[in-house]
Structure formats: structure tokens, C-alpha cells
């Protein structure tokens, strides 16, 4: 597709296949993420998006194909290893615990420590609260108190919290699994703004969605998945919103539905 140097890609999947028993979940999929771009992964339900991100996140190991991070082939045994390489995934369930406070959630699994009386290692709650509030503030989210339970926050705020957390912990690559799926218009807008902020900081983003209206304005390039296969990757300048919509599964079906409905209205 491009003639650029390989090293420009921070993350590459080359000819990845993944099978679950007799089910072919991914077939020969290639996905290349450039440094500092927002790469939208589009596809309808069942297209293999979830399997693809879980492969990227180190949850699944592909049956075939190569996975390269900054040009070096990797094989992650666990999500932890992917995380250590700076590949952070924000799943739809956000990995937040509603009953726990914002601060505790922000530092979940990476608790800031201090020594009590110089010997006993304890969580530095003061630091956690301060940093959580500060980092969320930088992202334009103001929480009432870092000690409030996450359960009291709105869906959009939670999404932003999860993203801000990933960025704070040194994510080089941010994989966002349908971050706008359950959100209202304004909240989706906030999340898109946050993605833009992440890109400005030089973070590469893979944005998974089936909503072209969210993907197109923010994306730099688009990969379309259909029934486990890639339909190709397109740079924004080479493709229009309508073409993307058409290419997605159901694009033509939706068009014929529109025609039918219009015909009915005219009759």
C-alpha cells in the first residue's frame, strides 16, 4: 500500500489467522499501525474485531502469521507482557470496579507504594488521589472527589477515566474497543476529543467501532473487517465517508433498505 520504511510502523499484524476449533475467526488479516496515527478498525458484529484486539492485547496467540512491535517479532504469553511493551487495551467493560473509588481504580494493579515507618509497604493513597485527580483534570474530566466510587460516574466519564489511566501509565499504543458504543452524543464527543488529545501526545491509537460517523472525523486510516477477513486499509485522503459506509457489511443492504423505504414513502 505504501512505500514507507517498515520502521514507521509501531505495530504490525502480518497475515494473522486465528481459529477456535472449526471456526475461522480471523483469516490472513494484515493490520499496520503507523506511529502517532489514529487507525480505525471497522466492522459489523461478528467480523472478528474482538478476536483481533484480543490478539493485539496478548490475550490470544494467533495460529498463523506474525505480530511485530516496532519491527521486532513478539509472542505475548499474557496481556501483562503486551502492557509492559506499552500496548494498552481499553475494553468495553473498561476494567473498572464500580464499588471502588476513582483513585483506587486509577491505580488498580499498579498501586503507588510508600513505606510505613520505613518498613511496611503500603499504598500511598494520598499520592493516588492527587495524581488521579490531576491526570483526569488534564483530560478535561473533573471528578467530584477522587474518593467517590466509580459507580457514581457517567458512562462517558468512566470511558475517559479508563483512557486517561492507560495514557498515564505510559501507553504507546492505545487500543480502544468500541469506546463510544454505549454513549450519548455529547459523551461520545468527549471521548473523540480525548482520542485527539492522545494523538497530539504522540500516542498511536487503534479505534474499534462500527460507527462510521465517529470513526471518519477522527481517523487517519481505516481497516475494514468482514467475516474474519480484511477488506483492506485505506488512508483518509483515498476514501470518503460514504465509501467506508458502503464497504462495511450491510452497506449495500442498508442502501437497498433506504431505497425501499423511500419508495414506500413516495407511494
Amino acid at each position: 500500500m505504501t512505500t514507507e520504511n517498515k520502521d514507521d510502523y509501531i505495530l504490525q499484524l502480518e497475515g494473522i489467522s486465528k481459529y477456535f476449533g472449526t471456526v475461522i475467526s480471523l483469516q490472513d488479516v494484515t493490520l499496520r499501525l503507523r506511529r502517532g496515527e489514529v487507525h480505525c478498525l471497522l466492522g459489523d458484529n461478528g467480523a472478528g474485531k474482538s478476536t483481533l484486539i484480543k490478539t493485539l492485547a496478548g490475550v490470544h496467540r494467533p495460529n498463523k502469521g506474525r505480530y511485530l512491535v516496532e519491527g521486532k517479532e513478539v509472542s505475548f504469553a499474557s496481556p501483562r507482557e503486551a502492557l509492559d511493551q506499552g500496548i494498552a487495551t481499553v475494553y468495553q467493560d473498561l476494567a473498572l470496579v464500580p464499588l471502588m473509588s476513582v483513585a483506587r481504580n486509577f491505580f488498580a494493579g499498579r498501586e503507588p507504594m510508600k513505606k510505613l515507618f520505613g518498613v511496611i509497604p503500603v499504598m500511598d493513597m494520598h499520592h493516588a488521589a492527587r495524581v488521579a485527580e490531576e491526570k483526569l483534570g488534564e483530560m478535561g474530566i473533573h471528578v467530584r472527589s477522587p474518593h467517590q466510587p466509580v459507580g457514581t460516574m457517567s458512562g462517558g466519564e468512566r470511558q475517559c477515566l479508563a483512557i486517561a489511566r492507560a495514557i498515564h501509565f505510559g501507553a504507546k499504543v492505545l487500543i480502544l474497543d468500541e469506546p463510544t458504543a454505549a454513549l450519548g452524543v455529547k459523551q461520545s464527543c468527549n471521548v473523540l476529543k480525548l482520542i485527539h488529545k492522545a494523538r497530539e501526545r504522540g500516542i498511536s491509537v487503534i479505534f474499534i467501532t462500527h460507527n462510521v460517523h465517529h470513526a471518519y472525523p477522527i481517523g487517519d486510516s481505516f481497516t475494514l473487517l468482514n467475516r474474519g477477513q480484511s477488506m483492506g486499509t485505506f488512508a483518509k485522503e483515498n476514501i470518503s465517508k460514504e465509501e467506508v459506509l458502503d464497504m462495511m457489511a450491510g452497506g449495500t443492504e442498508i442502501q437497498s433498505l433506504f431505497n425501499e423505504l423511500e419508495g414506500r414513502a413516495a407511494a
Partner: protein
Amino acid sequence: MSAITPPMTGSIGKTPAAQADERIRRISPWRALLNRPEFGSIAGTLLIFILFGFFAGDSGMFNLDGVMNWSTVAAYLGIIAVGACVLMIAGEFDLSIGSMIGFAGMMMAVPAMFLGWPMWASMLFAFAGCMALGWLNGYLVVRTRLPSFIVTLAFMFILRGLTLVLSTHFSNSTIVSGVGDKLSADPVVHTLFQGTTLHGLFGWLATIGLIEKLPNGEPVVGGLPKVLLWWLGVAAVAGFILSRTRFGNWIFMVGGDSNAAQNVGVPVRRVKISLFVFTAFCACLFGVLQVADVGSAAADRGLQKEFEAIIAAVIGGALLTGGYGSVLGACFGALIFGVVQIGISYTNFDSDWYRVFLGGMLLLAVLFNHYIRSRATTGK
């Protein structure tokens, strides 16, 4: 309740000096207290004290010997309630606690009485055995992903049955007696588990008149039962770990959402298994202390204690689905148990009402905690 109070100037005070935000609502100290998991059990304890103060205030229940009486009962239950509570916060149950108590006693008594082991060795054997069984419980639960309810229910029967088998095999009866004498002769086990301590302090308190004296000049209460110290110790350590350490944060995460915990890199299995081991340790501690106190091991020891431990944890604000609760709350839950169980005999009520009362208390606590929690989590 605090709707019309004047501006809350002195509220929580923990809010860092961030810029003022018009969306930050001040929370009164009263509301902050109300939102704590242990609030229900503290309120319940106060209520119980008021009730018994009213019905049994002049009966000697609140004299020092009366206090020792019910606080000892509370301490025994408190030890296993702490274990059950922490495990519940991590989202699991252990129904084998009660049977484990009986089995621990047997594991301590049988080698010492019939195999010629020194007491300290059989005590260590009991702890090691129980913790290994706790590990097995935990391993089976995380490995099979079966509900811990069913796995530990199986162990509840297996261990109860084994206790009976061991007892009848070695002593031809359901009780192994005579352990007490051998136990007092072992300095290590005796010092750790048997009887009371702080005799000097109690004697001194008696000489300055703070403790009543018996006709022979001895204080009415000679010392602090060691089980109380164990309770305080276990509760303090568990409470500290839960609220202040990284492992404590992991416990809350694992119970709140084990999938989320996994995704942020928390070793979910290890956390759960270690808490099963801790619960087994608590049950064993109960069993060993009881053997030291009673002087025998019996096959029916600890019957239904698993439910009492879980009830105490629930009264203490622990959520049955995990992710929420407090050690302090569980301790107050156990205290309520002790006060009611012993206190009822100081009143004019028939002590047959004890269970009715506890069931009612549990129901009340669950309803109350449910109400408080839904308020806390929706921020209303």
C-alpha cells in the same frame, strides 16, 4: 437527616487543594460516615447495647466478668468472621469453616494423644493441614470455576465426616479428651493459646479498686482471655492489609470484578487461593483455641459456625456478591452475636429466642446495608 444543617464548613477535609469546581458537591461528615460499610453494624451494636442495657442493665451483664463472658464468645466468632469477611470481599464463600474447626481440633488432638507427638508439633501439624486444605479449596474453585459455594459445601461434609472417622477410629468415641493436661504441660502451646494473660495488670487494677475482688482477695477476673488478643491481632492485621496495602486493593478488585482485575494484571487466582488459605488459618486458630480452652477435641465442634461467620460478615456490611465490606464491620457483627447469645440469658427472655433474634437481625442488617449501598454507589 442533615438536609437543613448550616453550611458544612468542616467537611471531610481530605479533598486536595484542587481548583474549586461547581460540580463538586460537599458531603457532610454524617453522610461520609453513613456511606462506610461498617456503619450498619456499628449502629446495630449501639442498638443492641441500648436494648440489653434496658432489659439486663442491672443483671451483671455489664460487670467485668459479664463483659469477659460475651466478649469471649464474640472473639471466637470474630476470628472466623474476619476470615469469612475478607474472603467474601474477594467474591468467594467458604462453607467448610465450621467443619474445619472440628477437623483442626482433631488434627491437633489425635497425634498428640495417640501417636505420641509433642503438643507443639501436633499444633503445627493442625495449622499446616488446615492451610493445605484451604489451599485445595481455593485451587479447586479457581481451577474449575465452579461456585465456591458448592466446592466448599462438599468439604463441609468431607471434613465433618473425616473428623468423626478419626475420632471413632482412635478413641472409640466422638470425643478425644484429656488434651487439656497435656496442653498445659507444653510451654509453647500453653503460652500461645491457653487461658488468660495480663494477670499482673488485672491484679494491679484490683488493688487500686478498679476490679472487684473475690472474698479471698483475688480479682473477679484474673486476666484477659488470650482468644481476645488473637481476635484483635487477626482483625488488626487483616484490616490493615485490606485497607492500606496493595494486596488489599487487589482483594477489592478481584471481588468487585474479577475480569477487570485480570485485565489490569492482578493475579486473580493467587489472591483467591491465598484468601482461602487465610480463612482456613482462622478456622484452625478457632479450633486450636477451643481445644486449649475446653481441654478436649470433639467431632461436633464448630457446627454451623460457617453460617455464623458469614452472618457476622454480612451484618458488618460485606456484600454477598463481593467487592465491598470491612473487617471492622465483621468484628462488630461478631460482637452483636456475642452480646445477644450471652446477654439473652441475663434478661427475662427465654434463650430459645436467640436464633429468632439473630435471624431478624440479619434480615434487618441486609436490608439496611442494601439501602445504604445503593445510595452510596449512585451518589444520591
